[in-house]
C-alpha cells in the first residue's frame, strides 16, 4: 500500500482546498463535424476512416476503432436509455461488458437485437441503434411518472397488493406490469442469420489478454504448450489499451505491440479475439462465444453471425481482470456519472472526452489516475473528492482542487450532470460545476469463472473485495482477477502460471524472462453508502440503498433472499456492478461482517449468450437428422406421402390421380393387398444379428417365450418385458443356423433395444458366448402380401426355388436365389394376415428391388402400400403395435399371457407376478365396433358403461388404435378396456368430449378379419 497524506489533519472536519486550479493545457477537441468531444490526437481509432451511424434516427459520425458508446461520447451524447422500473434517464456508466444502463436495440427488422450493450458494440458504417423502454421518446417518456410513485414502488411492493379482486390480475394488473417490464423488443421474426458450433482442444486456455493473460500466454507458448488465448474484445491488451504504464522499460503500448508480434510468431498459440469464455463445465470443457460478424451490418454470404466454441483444456489460466465498483450516493445514476476507469478508457483508448470539466469521487488511490488522464488530455478537473480525505503520494504533484468528504447530491437533467454538491464530515456543503462525475468505489476481481462450480469467493479486507475461492479443477486465476491489481503483480502471476501450466502439460521448452512493470500501490477505505436521496445499488433494476434496508427490515436477510426480493443483481448485467455493494449494505444493516454475509451463487453464462448460437444449425428442417428408407427415392418419385416415424421418413400412402383424400388411397391399397398383392418397405424395423453357441440361451433369457427350441429355418414371434414385468417390445426372430439368429424389433425401439441387448450380454450374462451386431441399416426389407404373393415371387425368384406351402411353409425362413442370381433372404411371416413373405436384400438394392417387385407383380396389379394401409390391416387382424405397447401393459393385457414360459427365468418374469399386474380388473385389449355402422370412431375416446355418468369411477378404458376397415365396411378400433375379455358383445359408450362425440359401441374380439388365420397359412 502506498503512503498517503491528509488533505488536512486526520481530524474531521476537513478543510476544503479553496485555491483556484488552472488547466494544465488548453483542451484539444476536434471542432469539425458532429464529434464535439473528440480529442484531436491519441487513442486507437483511425481518424482516416469516418463511420456514419444513427442513434434514435439522429445522424452522427464516429471513427473505425470506436464502440457505439465511445462514438456517442465523442458526439457529446449523454442520454442513452431509461431504467427498468422508474424509467429514470440513464447514460453511459462503463466501457465494458458490465454496462447496466447504455442498452440499445441494435439493427432493425428481423435482425433487431434488444438490450445490446452499446459499450461492447463495435461501430460500423451505417449502424442504427434505438433507445428502448421509453414512449413516446427518450427525452419525453410518459412512464417516467413511475418516479412519482417511487415512494410506493419500493422493493417487493407488488407482493403486497394487486390481489383484489382476484380475476383482475390476468385482466388488468398483470398485463400492465408486463407491458411496463422488460426492456427492449425482440424482433418477433425468425432470425435470418446462421450460427455455428465448433470444438477446440488445447493444453492451456488463457482467458483474457491483459498484462496477466499476455504474460501467461507468452510463457506457456514459449515453453511449447498448445495455447488458446481468448479475448472478448476485438483486440489484445485488456486494460493496457486504456492505461499508461511501463513494462520492461518501454511504454505499455510498445510492449503490447512486441508481445503481439511474438505471439503471432508462435504457431502453437491460437489467438481468438471477439471470443468471450462464458462458462466452465465438467472435464475441463469451457463454453465460449465468438462474435464472428457482429462488427459488420450483415454477415457475409456463407458466414455465421456467431460461433459457439466448446474448448477442452487441460489447464486454464483466467486473467479476466477486475470490474470497478460504483459508489452508492444520491443521484449516482444521472447521465454523466461514469466509472472512473471508463473515463480513462474513453480518453486513452478512444480519444473521446466524457466531459470538459470532470469531477472525481473516489475512496481509493486508483481513482486518482483519472484526474491525471483528464489533465493529460487537456480537459479540466473540477475537483477530486476523496472520501478518505487523503492525497495518495503518487498524486501529490497534481495541481488539483482536492476535497475531503462525499458527493451528497448530483444536479442535472436528462442531458446529464450540471453540478455536484460535496459534503464534508462536518456537514458543510459546497456546489461544484461539472459535466461529468467520475466515480471509483474500488475494484471487484472478476471471479465469475472461478465460482461456476460453486467455489465460494473469499473476502479480503485490505482491498475491500472478494477474491477467488476454490477454483474448478485445472483452473487458476491470476492478476487483477485474483485481487492483485498492480501491473507488476499481473505480469508476475501471469508469467508464473503460464510456466507451471505448460510444465504440467509436459512442455519442455523455456518460458523466458518474466516481464517487469510498475508496482503501483493500491489503498482503499470502503465507503458503502452516502445518505441523502435515491442512491442506486442496481442501476438497471432501480434497486436503491433504502430497498436493501427495507428487505432487511422484512427479514429477507440472506443474500439470496435479498436478490430475489429486491431483484438486485438479476438484470442483464448479472450484478457485475451491484452485488458487492448490495451485500455490503446488507452486512451494514444486519451488523454482520461482509465475509459472513457471503455472496449469491454465481451462475453461467458470464455474459449473456444468444440462444441462436447455442442452437447452431439445429433449426428448421435441420433440427434433427433425416433417415431415409432404402426405397425412399423410388417412393418419392411415385408421389408417396411421407410420415415422420422417429427420425425416419416412411411412405404413408401412395395417392393416385383422382383420389380425393388419404382415406380413399389407403382403402384402395388395403383392398388391392387383400384381393391381389402389394408390398411395403419395412426396413425401418430394428434388426440384430445374434451369433454364437449360446445364442439360443441368450434369447430364452430375453424373451418371455422360448427360442432355443426353434428349428433352423423357422421364425417365431417373441415378446420382451422390462425387468419391472411390463411389455417392452415385440418382433419376429428367425433361426438361420444352429448358432445364428436374426432378431427384429419395432421401429421405435430399434436403438433402445440394441442397448438393452448389449446390457444383457455384457453386464448380466458375460458368461454366455454370443455376439450381437446391429444390421438395421444393412438390409432393405419388403413385406409382400396378398393372395397373389406366391405368383409374384415366382416371377422374382429362380424357378428352382420351391415356394409351395410344403416347400416354404408358414413361418419358414431361408435364403433364395432371385432371377439373375442375386441372393436374398425370404421370411414367410405375415403382419397383414394375408399370405405374405418378407424379402431382404442388401440395403443398396432397395430401389432396384422396389422396381423388380413392380415388374414381377405387374400382371397381378401389384400395389405398393404405405404405413397407413399396414396399420389398417394389423388392426383388422387385431395385432398389437405402438399404441398398445404403451409401457404400462402386461403380456396378458395384450392377450399374450399364454406365451409366458413357466419353465425358465427371463427379464421381467418375477416382477410380472405382482398382485396389481395380475389383477382381474385390468384393462385388456379388445375390439370395438360402432353400433351405428356409419359412425366414425376416434382414438383417445374413453369407454363408459352404458347408462353411467362419465366420471373418474366410470372411466373403464380408451380406444388405442382406430381405422376404417375396407373389409368390414365400417370403422373399427382396438381398445384397452377393464375386464374386456369377459365383455365381448356388451354395448358401451365411446365418450369423446374433446371432440363433442358420444356414441354406442360394441366390445368385440380384437381379431376382426379371418379369425381362423386360414389366409396367411394358405
Amino acid at each position, binding site marked *: 500500500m502506498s503512503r498517503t497524506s491528509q488533505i488536512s489533519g486526520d481530524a474531521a472536519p476537513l478543510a476544503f482546498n479553496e485555491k483556484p486550479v488552472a488547466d494544465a493545457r488548453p483542451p484539444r477537441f476536434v471542432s469539425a463535424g458532429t464529434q464535439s468531444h473528440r480529442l484531436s490526437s491519441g487513442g486507437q481509432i483511425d481518424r482516416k476512416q469516418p463511420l456514419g451511424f444513427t442513434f434514435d434516427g439522429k445522424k452522427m459520425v464516429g471513427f473505425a476503432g470506436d464502440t457505439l458508446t465511445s462514438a456517442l461520447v465523442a458526439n457529446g451524447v449523454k442520454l442513452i436509455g431509461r431504467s427498468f422500473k422508474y424509467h429514470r434517464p440513464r447514460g453511459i456508466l462503463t466501457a465494458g461488458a458490465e454496462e447496466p444502463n447504455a442498452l440499445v436495440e441494435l439493427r432493425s427488422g428481423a435482425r433487431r437485437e434488444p438490450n445490446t450493450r452499446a459499450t461492447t458494440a463495435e461501430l460500423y458504417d451505417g449502424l442504427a441503434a434505438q433507445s428502448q423502454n421509453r414512449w413516446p421518446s427518450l427525452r419525453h417518456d410518459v412512464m417516467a411518472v413511475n418516479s412519482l410513485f417511487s415512494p410506493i414502488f419500493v422493493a417487493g411492493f407488488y407482493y403486497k397488493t394487486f390481489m383484489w379482486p382476484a380475476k383482475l390480475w390476468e385482466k388488468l394488473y398483470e398485463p400492465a406490469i408486463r407491458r411496463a417490464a422488460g426492456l427492449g423488443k425482440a424482433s418477433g421474426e425468425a432470425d435470418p442469420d446462421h450460427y455455428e458450433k465448433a470444438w477446440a482442444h488445447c493444453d492451456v486456455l488463457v482467458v483474457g489478454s491483459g498484462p496477466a493473460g499476455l504474460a501467461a500466454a507468452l510463457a506457456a507458448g514459449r515453453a511449447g504448450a498448445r495455447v488458446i488465448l481468448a479475448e472478448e474484445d476485438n483486440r489484445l491488451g485488456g486494460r493496457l489499451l486504456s492505461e499508461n504504464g511501463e513494462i520492461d522499460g518501454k511504454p505499455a503500448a510498445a510492449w503490447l505491440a512486441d508481445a503481439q508480434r511474438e505471439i503471432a510468431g508462435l504457431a502453437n498459440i491460437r489467438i481468438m479475439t471477439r471470443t468471450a469464455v462464458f462458462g466452465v463445465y465438467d472435464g475441463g470443457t469451457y463454453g465460449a462465444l465468438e462474435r464472428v460478424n457482429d462488427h459488420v451490418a450483415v454477415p457475409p454470404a456463407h458466414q455465421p453471425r456467431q460461433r459457439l466454441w466448446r474448448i477442452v483444456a487441460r489447464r486454464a489460466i483466467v486473467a479476466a481482470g477486475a470490474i470497478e465498483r460504483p459508489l452508492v450516493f444520491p443521484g449516482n445514476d444521472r447521465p454523466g456519472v461514469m466509472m472512473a476507469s471508463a473515463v480513462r478508457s474513453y480518453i486513452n483508448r478512444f480519444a473521446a472526452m466524457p466531459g470538459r470539466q470532470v469531477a472525481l469521487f473516489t475512496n481509493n488511490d486508483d481513482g486518482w489516475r483519472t484526474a491525471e488522464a483528464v489533465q493529460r488530455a487537456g480537459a479540466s478537473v473540477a475537483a477530486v473528492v476523496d472520501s478518505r480525505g487523503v492525497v495518495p503520494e503518487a498524486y501529490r504533484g497534481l495541481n488539483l482542487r482536492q476535497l475531503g468528504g462525499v458527493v451528497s447530491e448530483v444536479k442535472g437533467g436528462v442531458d446529464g450532470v450540471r453540478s455536484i454538491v460535496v459534503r464534508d464530515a462536518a456537514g458543510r456543503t459546497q456546489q461544484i460545476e461539472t459535466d461529468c462525475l467520475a466515480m471509483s468505489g474500488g475494484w471487484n476481481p472478476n471471479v465469475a469463472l472461478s465460482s461456476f462450480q460453486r467455489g465460494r469467493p473469499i473476502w479480503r479486507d485490505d482491498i475491500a473485495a472478494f477474491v477467488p475461492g476454490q477454483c474448478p479443477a485445472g483452473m487458476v486465476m491470476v492478476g487483477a482477477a485474483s485481487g492483485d491489481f498492480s501491473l507488476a503483480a499481473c505480469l508476475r502471476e501471469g508469467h508464473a502460471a503460464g510456466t507451471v501450466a505448460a510444465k504440467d502439460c509436459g512442455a519442455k521448452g523455456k518460458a523466458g524472462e518474466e516481464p517487469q512493470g510498475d508496482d503501483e500501490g493500491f489503498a482503499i477505505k470502503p465507503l458503502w453508502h452516502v445518505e441523502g436521496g435515491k442512491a442506486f445499488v442496481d442501476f438497471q433494476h432501480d434497486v436503491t440503498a433504502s430497498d436493501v434496508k427495507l428487505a432487511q427490515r422484512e427479514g429477507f436477510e440472506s443474500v439470496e433472499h435479498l436478490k430475489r426480493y429486491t431483484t438486485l443483481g438479476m438484470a442483464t448485467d448479472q450484478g457485475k456492478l451491484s452485488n458487492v455493494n448490495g451485500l455490503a449494505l446488507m452486512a451494514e444493516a444486519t451488523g454482520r461482517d461482509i465475509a459472513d454475509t457471503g455472496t449469491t451463487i454465481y451462475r453461467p453464462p458470464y455474459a449473456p449468450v444468444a440462444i441462436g448460437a447455442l442452437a447452431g444449425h439445429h433449426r428448421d428442417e435441420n433440427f434433427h437428422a433425416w433417415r431415409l428408407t432404402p426405397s425412399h427415392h423410388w417412393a418419392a418419385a411415385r408421389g408417396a406421402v411421407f410420415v415422420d416415424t422417429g427420425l425416419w421418413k416412411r411412405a404413408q400412402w401412395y395417392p393416385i390421380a383422382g383420389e380425393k383424400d388419404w382415406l380413399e388411397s389407403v382403402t384402395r391399397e388395403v383392398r388391392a393387398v387383400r384381393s391381389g398383392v402389394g408390398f411395403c418397405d419395412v426396413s425401418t424395423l430394428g434388426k440384430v444379428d445374434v451369433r454364437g453357441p449360446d445364442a439360443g440361451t441368450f434369447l430364452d433369457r430375453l424373451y418371455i417365450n422360448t427360442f432355443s427350441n426353434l428349428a433352423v429355418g423357422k421364425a417365431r414371434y417373441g415378446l420382451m418385458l422390462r425387468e419391472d414385468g411390463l411389455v417392452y417390445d415385440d418382433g419376429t426372430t428367425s433361426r438361420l443356423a444352429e448358432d445364428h439368429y436374426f432378431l427384429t424389433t419395432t421401429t421405435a425401439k430399434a436403438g433402445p433395444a440394441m442397448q438393452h441387448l*448389449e446390457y444383457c450380454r*455384457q*453386464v448380466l450374462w458375460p458368461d454366455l458366448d454370443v455376439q450381437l451386431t446391429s444390421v438395421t441399416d444393412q438390409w432393405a426389407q419388403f413385406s409382400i402380401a396378398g393372395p397373389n404373393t406366391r405368383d409374384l415371387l415366382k416371377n422374382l425368384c429362380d424357378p428352382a426355388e420351391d415356394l409351395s406351402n410344403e416347400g416354404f411353409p408358414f413361418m419358414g425362413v431361408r435364403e433364395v436365389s432371385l432371377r439373375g442370381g442375386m441372393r436374398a433372404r425370404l421370411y414367410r411371416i405375415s403382419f397383414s394376415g394375408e399370405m405374405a413373405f418378407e424379402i431382404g436384400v442388401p440395403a443398396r438394392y432397395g430401389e432396384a428391388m422396389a422396381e423388380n417387385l413392380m415388374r414381377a407383380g405387374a400382371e397381378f396389379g401389384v400395389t405398393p402400400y404405405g404405413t397407413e394401409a399396414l396399420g389398417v390391416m394389423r388392426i383388422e387382424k387385431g395385432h398389437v403395435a405402438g399404441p398398445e405397447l404403451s409401457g404400462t401393459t402386461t403380456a396378458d393385457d395384450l392377450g399374450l399371457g399364454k406365451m409366458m414360459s413357466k419353465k425358465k427365468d427371463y427379464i421381467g418374469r*418375477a*416382477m410380472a407376478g405382482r398382485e396389481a399386474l395380475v389383477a382381474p380388473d385390468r384393462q385388456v385389449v379388445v375390439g370395438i365396433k360402432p353400433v351405428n355402422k356409419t359412425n366414425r370412431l376416434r382414438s383417445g375416446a374413453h369407454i363408459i358403461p352404458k347408462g353411467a355418468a362419465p366420471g373418474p369411477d366410470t372411466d373403464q378404458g380408451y380406444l388405442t388404435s382406430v381405422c376404417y376397415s375396407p373389409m368390414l365396411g365400417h370403422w373399427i378400433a382396438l381398445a384397452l378396456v377393464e375386464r374386456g375379455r369377459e365383455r365381448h358383445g356388451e354395448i358401451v359408450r365411446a365418450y369423446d368430449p374433446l371432440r363433442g362425440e358420444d356414441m354406442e359401441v360394441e366390445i368385440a374380439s380384437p381379431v376382426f378379419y379371418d379369425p381362423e388365420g386360414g389366409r396367411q397359412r394358405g
Partner: protein
Amino acid sequence: MRIACPFCGERELGEFTYLGDAAPVRPTAFAADGAEQPDAQDLFFDYVYLRDNVAGDMDERWYHGGGCRSWLTVTRSTTTHEIKAVRAAAGAGAQKLAKAGATS
C-alpha cells in the same frame, strides 16, 4: 463431462447414455437347481426399485452408444461430477483389456 472409454479414448458426454447405480446385482427367479425362488419377488423388488442414491463416489453403468457400444463401469462423484475410474463391463472385452495390460 468427459469419459475415457477404455477402447475409444476420452470422449464427450454426448456419446454416452446413462443407466444408473452399478451396485444392484440381478437375482434370478430360479435357484441353481432349477427350483423357483420363493422370495424372488422380494429380491427383484429390491433390485429393480431400491437405490442407495449415493451422494459421493458411485460406480455407475454408462453405455458408449456413440462409439464402441461398450457398457462401462464409471466411478464418479455425484456431488462434484469428477470421474475417478472407468472400467469395461465383464462382457465388453474386459479380459482382453486385462491381457493387453499384462503384455504391455
